[in-house]
Structure formats: C-alpha cells, structure tokens
C-alpha cells in the first residue's frame, strides 16, 4: 500500500492502540465500538475475515483488505466472562468461529444468534480448555439440529463413521424425495485439543503439532508455523531453505490435486480416472520420499529452515517426475473433458454462487472456481514466490466441473513452479539457529496450502516457548459453503460435491 493512502483496514487499525512486537502485519487493540465497526465493514464486504480466535480474556480478528492487499489484526483485551460483541450477528461467516471461541474460552459472543456448542460435544473432562475457568461439566444433551418443515420432507442422518476411508463428521440431510432441501453439518469429532497442547510447548514440538493439524497439508502447516515464528523473532531463513520449502509445498499441492481429481471422477462412477491419477499421485509421493526422506514430507520444515537437503539424485528424480506427469496428464485431461457421462455428473452440480464465496472469503479452488482469485502466494508474495511466476487460475461457474478445472490448471502451474525452483535453487546452508530475543513477541503467517490459505498466529514468551498458537484451516470458510452448494441437488450427488470441496475435518476440528 502507498504511504498516506487511506484504506478501510488502515483506517480501523489507526483508531486502535498499536501493539508492539507483532510482525509482519500490524495488530491494534480496539474498544467495543471499533470492534463493531470492523464487523460492519466485514458485513458490507469492505473487508474479508481471515480468522477469529480467543484467549482467556481476549479475542482477535485477522482482517484482509483485498482492495489494497493489506492484512492486520484487531483485538479486544481484558474481557470478562460476559464476553464481547459478536461479529457473527453482523457477519455470518464468523458464526462457527464464535461458537468455537465460546467452547474453548468461555467468552460469550454477545448477540450471537446461535447458542449451541460447536467443538464441545460435552465429552471432554473439562470445559473452556483455553479459558481456565472452573466450571461444572454440563449434562450431555442431544444436539438440536435446525428444523426444516414441510410436506413430504424426511431426514437422512449420515456419520460420524462414513462408508469410505474418510474422516468423521455428521451430515444431517433434509430431503424431499431425492432433492436436498437442507444440509446441516455437525463437526468437532476429531477435536484433539491441539491449541491447548501448543501452550507452553517448545518450538520443535510446536512444529511437530502444526504438521499434524491436517495430514494432507503437513508441509503447508509446518511452513506456516515456522514462518510465523520467524516473523515474531525477525529471523530470515537461508535462501536455499526458503526455496526448498516452496518446492515441498508445490509437491504437496501436486499430490493432493492429482489424488482428488481422480477421486472426484471416481465419485461420479468413472474409476478409470482414479486409477490413472492415483498412479501419478503415488509417483509424486515416491519422488518426495526419495528427495526428502518422507512420502508426505512431514517434519521437514522447522523454525529456522528445513531438516533435509535435496541432493543431486533427489533433484534428478523430481525432473523425471515432471517429465512423466507432463507426458501422461494431458491425455487424462482430455479424457475428463470428452467423457459425456462424466461431464453429465460434474457440470452444473453443486454450484456455489460467487457472492457467497466472496462473503466467506473462500480460499483455494473453492473460491477460485467461484470467481474469487485470492491466493496467498500471489497476494502476500512471501519468499521465494516473490521471485517466481505465480499465475492464479480463476473460473466463474462455481460447479463441480469448475473446481475440477481449477485443480487441473493448478497441477500445470505447480509443475511449472517446481521446474522454476529446480532451475534456480540457490546453494548454501538450510538451517539457522533460533535467536533468543528475551522479550515477548508475536508473529503471523498466511501460507497457501493446496486447499487454500492457512493462517497461523502465535505469541512467544521471552524465553522462546509458545504462549498461544492459533491455526486456522481454510476449511472454516469452506464447510459452510458446502451446505449452500448442495441445496437443490440430489442426495446421490453429495459425495461428488463433498469431494470437490474436500474440506479438512481434522484441520477444522483441530
């Protein structure tokens, strides 16, 4: 942003009290009025909500001003159990985040139009695990699903244990014959208390936990966590480490997109694509294993750099992989595009309106297939993407077909990025020591995983341990949109729609 230029975000942050030692973006402490005016800016579409999370006596919201590409955090501090003014009463994408804040901290979002718990199913051995308030455990009562009434409506409960090899969650369909009238999701089944485990952990354990928030995005999460730590400490990692991080991130994106393109087609009863795409995915994982010593490249990115260097054999294996995928993938794209029985299932199915994608700040292929071109690699240009050509595909149809095409295009883009990285990989060390700064620091990072932008915010104690770490999966803003996209579709198309979104249960439940 140009100096002196006013924007919605800078205007709001300037009215608050700036917080020192928060990097790379500003954080300001607000009063209730300023907090509400930010919520109003969100509801009017002038800002995008990037995250909303709580601590024992404070709440924070991360905001994006897309018009000028600026990011910042607004906080309310010194809160009592009576809580804070709800953001969701004005801006509905905050709804589940605020229900989660209440479950985890006990802070009441005043005016929140939904009093039901979200992550807390009444089965933990305590309440408000991040709030440390002593309260009795509640009776376990049945979850009150929203009602849909009318002649001929029936309900179909699905999950938490599903028919395939997928994560647990509950879907409550209300249908009229074959047509879905309402879908309501109930999540939280895989809540592991990761953020409570983060509190007091050292950085090594922090990176390990971050890499286990969502297994399919283990690289992206470790990347985001490490970058947030480095932002807090003012540490610049060696160039080779930075480039190899991006290489791993693109391999992860490639593997996930290839696997999912096949799986979506399989859910449309076309297993030939799954067989071929599954073969390509396996080759990516094997090349990653040969290059970095782990098929999913888990625990390779740590604060300060990376733990596993790329040698000549590994690089040669990756070049062979690129050639192999470039030789085989175009025929699969053609097969997808020219198979009418497959197109019949994907075109026009599960349409997500552009307005909703924008309102929710939907990231990744969900946003990009519905006209929202946000990509953290392009928007914040964190290294090494500041010196790479990042080209973001955008479509407007918003259906399953568009989400498949975004992934196809991103496979091609990732191949190009991997090639650019291999061509220009700097030499040098891959890991720096973590400096001791002796004061409390806060850091933040926004990293583009295959599913969308992952936000990590953390505060480090003076001796370097983690005081609080919040990790926000892109799925938080995609799960609610799946409910909207399935409306009016037939029940049998739900697996197809669900797979085309492929939201993370574990990343969301945390």
């Amino acid at each position, binding site marked *: 942003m140009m100096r002196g230029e006013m924007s919605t975000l800078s205007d709001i942050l300037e009215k608050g009290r700036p917080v020192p030692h928060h990097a790379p973006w500003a954080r300001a402490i607000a009063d209730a009025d300023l907090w509400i005016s930010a919520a109003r800016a969100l509801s009017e579409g002038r800002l995008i909500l990037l995250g909303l999370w709580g601590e024992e006596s404070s709440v924070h919201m991360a905001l994006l001003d897309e018009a000028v590409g600026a990011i910042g955090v607004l906080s309310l501090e010194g809160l009592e159990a009576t809580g804070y003014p709800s953001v969701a009463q004005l801006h509905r994408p905050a709804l589940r985040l605020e229900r989660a804040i209440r479950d985890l901290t006990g802070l009441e979002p005043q005016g929140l139009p939904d009093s039901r718990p979200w992550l807390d*199913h009444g*089965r*933990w*051995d*305590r309440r408000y*695990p991040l709030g440390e308030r002593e309260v009795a455990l509640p009776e376990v009562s049945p979850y009150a699903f929203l009602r849909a009434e009318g002649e001929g409506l029936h309900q179909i409960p699905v999950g*938490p*244990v599903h*028919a*395939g*090899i*997928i*994560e*647990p969650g509950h879907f409550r369909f209300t249908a009229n014959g074959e047509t879905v009238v309402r879908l309501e999701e109930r999540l*939280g*089944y*895989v*809540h*592991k*208390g*990761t953020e*409570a*485990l983060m509190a007091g952990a050292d950085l090594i*354990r922090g990176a*390990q*936990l971050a890499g*286990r*928030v*969502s*297994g*399919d995005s*283990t690289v992206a999460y470790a990347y985001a966590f490490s970058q947030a730590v480095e932002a807090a400490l003012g540490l610049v990692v060696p160039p080779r480490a930075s480039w190899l991080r991006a290489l791993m991130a693109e391999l992860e994106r490639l593997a996930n997109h290839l*696997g999912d393109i096949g799986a979506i087609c399989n859910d449309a009863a076309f297993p*030939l694509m799954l*067989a*071929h795409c*599954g*073969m390509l*995915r*396996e080759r990516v*994982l094997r090349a990653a294993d040969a290059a970095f010593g782990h*098929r*999913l490249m*888990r625990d390779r990115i740590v604060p300060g750099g990376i733990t596993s260097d790329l040698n000549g054999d590994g690089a040669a294996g990756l070049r062979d992989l690129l050639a192999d995928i470039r030789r085989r993938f175009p*025929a*699969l794209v053609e*097969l997808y595009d*020219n*198979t009418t029985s497959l197109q019949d299932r994907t075109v026009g199915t599960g349409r997500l309106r552009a307005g909703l994608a924008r309102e929710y700040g939907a990231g990744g292929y969900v946003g990009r297939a519905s006209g929202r071109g946000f990509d953290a690699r392009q928007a914040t240009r964190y290294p090494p993407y500041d010196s790479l050509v990042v080209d973001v595909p955008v479509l407007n149809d918003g259906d399953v077909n568009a989400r498949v095409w975004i992934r196809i295009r991103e496979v091609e883009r990732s191949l190009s990025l991997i090639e650019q990285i291999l061509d220009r990989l700097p030499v040098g060390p891959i890991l720096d020591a973590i400096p001791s700064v002796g004061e409390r620091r806060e850091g933040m990072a926004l990293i583009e995983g295959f599913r969308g932008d992952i936000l990590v915010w953390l505060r480090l104690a003076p001796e370097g341990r983690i005081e609080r770490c919040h990790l926000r999966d892109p799925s938080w803003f995609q799960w609610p949109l799946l409910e909207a996209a399935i409306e009016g579709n037939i029940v049998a198309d739900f697996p197809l729609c669900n797979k085309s979104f492929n939201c*993370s*249960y*574990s990343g969301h439940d945390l």
Partner: protein
Amino acid sequence: MRKLLFESLIRRPLTEPRPPVSDAAMAELAEAIERSARRRLGRSLSIRAVDAGSCNGCELEMHALSNVFYDIERFGLRFVASPRHADVLLVTGPVTRNMAQALERTYIATPDPKWVVALGDCGRDGGCFAGSYAVLGGVSKVVPVDLHIPGCPPSPMDILKGLLGLLDGVNGEGRVS
C-alpha cells in the same frame, strides 16, 4: 478414452509383481493369506476403516493401498463400507473423546470373529496428542487391539507388513500385540 484403454491392453501393468521369495514382506503376506486367512475367513479379509481422530495422514496411505502399485485387493484384502461386512477394524487416531462412543458402537456392530488393528503412532498411545483433555490416548483405551502398526503415517508397505502380523495372530488364535 479408447486410446488410453488400448494402451492399457498392450502396456505392461504397473502393479508391482508379487515379489520373489526374497522380498519377505509381500511374499509372506501373500503366503500367509493362502494358509491362515482362507482357513478362517475363506478367500478374503474385509477391512472397515475407522478414523477415531487422526490427522488424515494415515487415511492417505490407506487410500494408496488401492492404487495400481499396491493393488491390495489382489490379496483378497478389501475395504468395505459397513462394519457389519467387516472382519477387521483398521482404526486410526489418538481416539478423541468426541469419537470414543462412535468407535465403540462400530466395534459392537462388527460381527465375530473380528480383529482390531491400530494404525499409526497416535493409535498406539495417542502419539503427540497424548495428555490432551480431548483425547483418550490410543485405540486400546476403547476397544481390544490385536495389532499395532507404527509410523507417522505408516507407508502402504508398512501397512501390508502389519497385516501379515495380524494374519499370523489369526492363525495362532491369540492376540499378537
């Protein structure tokens, strides 16, 4: 599509061949299924996957077992859609408190004889999530476990090797872990 299908006819399959006897894991697995599973279970072993709080890493490698390289079904091992069709529950995750009841019910819904395999480091003792207010810390806290397959996540080959151990257990009538 015709070209792709035609190529598949003339090209050698990618499925990695049943390994020579020297490749202990795969060969023993194939052989063990010949001997033990057929006697107890006929020609196949039906596996029901249950995610009891995993990060989804284990699920990714479970999926890989079905790709053309591993092609798990050629050994008579297959994933089924309901616990009522299953001989084996393949359970992942540290077992979150929110999933404990669902896991228990899935176990009860599985007909005897049945075996439980805990997959991954979390399934053994909660892994890096052990001690959290939200997890019980291992599959054996909720249902009896016949075999643990370690790894974070275990590779597809590790999972195949692990199933060999289970089949030995099935043969020997005892719990193997």
